[in-house]
């Protein structure tokens, strides 16, 4: 390199850094010292079988569950040292957590926008756009209690994106969502990424992860068993095959369940 050569840009620091994250419930180790780097601007899939520790990891990254050990940084902010700043930079869609049932969808977004300190006109315009894009505009005045599971999921996504965070954590965002809505969600997330946002998504639907994500980590029994760019992890194979190999094959039916045949 000569003095006249342009200096290459330094790689962007990871959007999410996790070091030694641990959680134990009673005597069951749910997360066993996870280390993770989520590249900035990536669509990162956190995959694993049921009970692997994906949701617990996400909760610890989003200030919903205090870890027993280790820590996490979101957009350079240590989550458990400066949670207020971390929350400003991230949005979260936990799996199946209740909302304020007796607010309408529109009211809920207004309320949360105000809680985040956004100006009311800004909240109104952002809410209207999000509800429109997510197909909830006609139901903005309906009480959340009367929303279907899919509608609640979309409303929660709108709430997670309302303040234009740098990173969003989405726990099973496509579960219970119809294909049309799923497409709308994907478009919203693509737009979010195009602005430099990072999406961390947990799922056990390999097709979804393979189609959407550019990086992933496979979690099994509270540990990361594989991580990296999705092409590198797949290494030319189907993601489902890689996943099953990483977490162990399915229990063989053998001569059981013969009464079903």
């Amino acid at each position, binding site marked *: 390199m000569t003095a006249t050569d342009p200096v290459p840009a330094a790689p962007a620091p990871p959007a999410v850094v996790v070091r030694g994250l641990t959680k134990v419930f009673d005597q069951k180790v749910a997360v066993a010292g996870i280390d993770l780097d989520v590249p900035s601007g990536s669509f990162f899939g956190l995959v694993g079988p049921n009970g692997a520790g994906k949701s617990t990891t996400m909760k610890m990254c989003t200030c919903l*569950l205090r870890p027993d050990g280790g820590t996490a940084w979101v957009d350079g902010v240590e989550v458990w040292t400066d949670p207020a700043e971390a929350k400003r930079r991230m*949005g979260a869609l936990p799996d199946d957590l209740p909302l304020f049932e007796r607010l309408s969808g529109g009211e809920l977004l207004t*309320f949360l926008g*105000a*809680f985040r300190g956004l100006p009311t006109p800004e909240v*109104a315009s952002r809410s209207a756009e999000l509800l429109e894009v997510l197909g909830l505009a006609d139901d903005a*005045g309906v009480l959340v209690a009367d929303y279907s599971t899919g509608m609640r999921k979309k409303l929660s996504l709108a709430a997670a994106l309302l303040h234009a965070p740098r990173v969003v954590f989405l726990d099973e965002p496509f579960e219970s969502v119809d294909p049309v809505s799923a497409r709308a969600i994907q478009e919203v997330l693509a737009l979010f990424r195009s602005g430099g946002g990072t999406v961390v998504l947990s799922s056990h639907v390999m097709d979804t992860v393979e189609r959407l994500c550019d990086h992933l980590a496979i979690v099994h029994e509270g540990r990361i068993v594989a991580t990296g760019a999705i092409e590198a992890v797949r290494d030319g194979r189907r993601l489902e095959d890689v996943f099953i190999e990483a977490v162990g094959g399915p229990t063989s039916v053998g001569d059981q369940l013969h009464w079903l045949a």
Partner: protein
Amino acid sequence: MVGVFIRLKWRLLRNGVRRTRGNPVAVIGFIVAVIGSLVAAVVGSVVLVGLHGYWDEVARERILAVVCSGVVVGWWFGPFLTGGVDETVDPSRLVLLPLDRRQMRRGQIAAGLVGLAPLVVLTWSVAIAVGMGRSLVGLPVVVAACVLLPLAGLVGSRALATSLARLTRTRRGGDVAALVAAFGGALVFGALQLIRFVEPDDLDAVVRTLRWTPPGMAAAALELARDGAVLDAAWRLVPLAATVLVLGWLWARQLDRLLEDPAQLHGVAADATAADGMAIFAGARRFLPRSATGAAVAKELVYLRRSPGRRAALFAGTALGLVYVVIIVAQGDRSQRLAVLASPIAMLFSVQYASNQLGVDPSAFWLEVVTGPPARARWAGRQLLAAVNVVAPVVVAALAMGLLTGGWAEVVATLVATVAATPAIVGVGSLMSPVWVTPLPDSGNPFAANQSAGGNGCMAGVVAILFVGLIAVLVGPASLALRWALLESPAWAPAVAAVVVAVDATIWWGASRAATALIGAKETDVLAQLDARLNR
């Protein structure tokens, strides 16, 4: 199938107890509930076995009338007072099972007989049978009465819960349901208080009235059967048997409707005001600041209008408080002035909204955690709700006492002192809230009112009592001084009022700041206590 329901209920109870592990508050609550039930069962049984010969005829008559009526009416409304309605009663959980209606009813009745409170009632029923079963000829009637009494209580409770579940589908229905539960609860509570305070001789009038009711007639039937007057006794059991049949029919009818449309159990119909999605700052709320604090207050005002749970709590707290004040005033020779001045005691039953501010809307607390609102917004809405629940019962009780006694000067003094003390009360409540948090259900569906599981309801009561003691020490003297000044020395009233307001405002300010610091440190612990799903 009956056995399956019993095992299901037993397992639900056992798992509820298992979940208290690691939660000292719930463990204490559970232990208190167990000890209380055992004491009630043993003491009650000793008294009732004593019917065999220990008590004289007058005492026997009183005991039977009160116990028989108490068992039935207490079982009807007790679960709503304690939040003890269990999941086995909820038809929506069973609707996919291939159970016919008969199996469902039998199973639910059997499941209803499993638990601490049913254990107490069944023990008492056996004790009544032992105490009153002196004549072989009359024994069948005694046994029939002892079976009918808990059955009437249980079937009535099921009928009420199922009817309320259907009613709460609409806002108007929700209010009716809340009123039924609140005033029924007040009735039971008032009766219990009367028994505690009234002299035995004063009970005769009550007993004479009770003996015209089906449970009271069953009590008379027990006495007649004891003396061998079988036919007379049997006739007196007919009204109670008819009550069981009518309540059973009502329950079956409501249950059938719920099974045909289980969606009736969930959700509340959207109201017209929600048509404008951005309406959180609409109507009277448009004057609120467009800030996090304004939004928190607006949300609580919206919830006061729409949430059957909130309104039920407010109605129940107000009704129970009024009954309590009336009972206290009815004791002994109280002057008019004291009658009105006793009305702040009415806040006793809704004060848990002040001392357990984080327990309201427990399941949605995560939204606040991930949003990270400004400190002031955390408490503004909660303190407003607490203030409403503190002030409303006192206003109703003071006005009622004013109407009864004509002591309007005392009414004014009481209301001024209460309003002045309210900021301090809710501020101290905010400070206590992160320390002792108990999730309160927010549902118009009575099947969802299961906060008593694991001793939570009991512990919430204990914490509320501690809170009342604390505010009596912190706020009581200033409040009494203000009332004294207003009534006895009006010239001093402005100066005393200024000092009292300053003292109460200082307590509110200091306690709120301390609460803010505390919630910052304990946020995730509170969240884990409020929503168990986050902690697994």
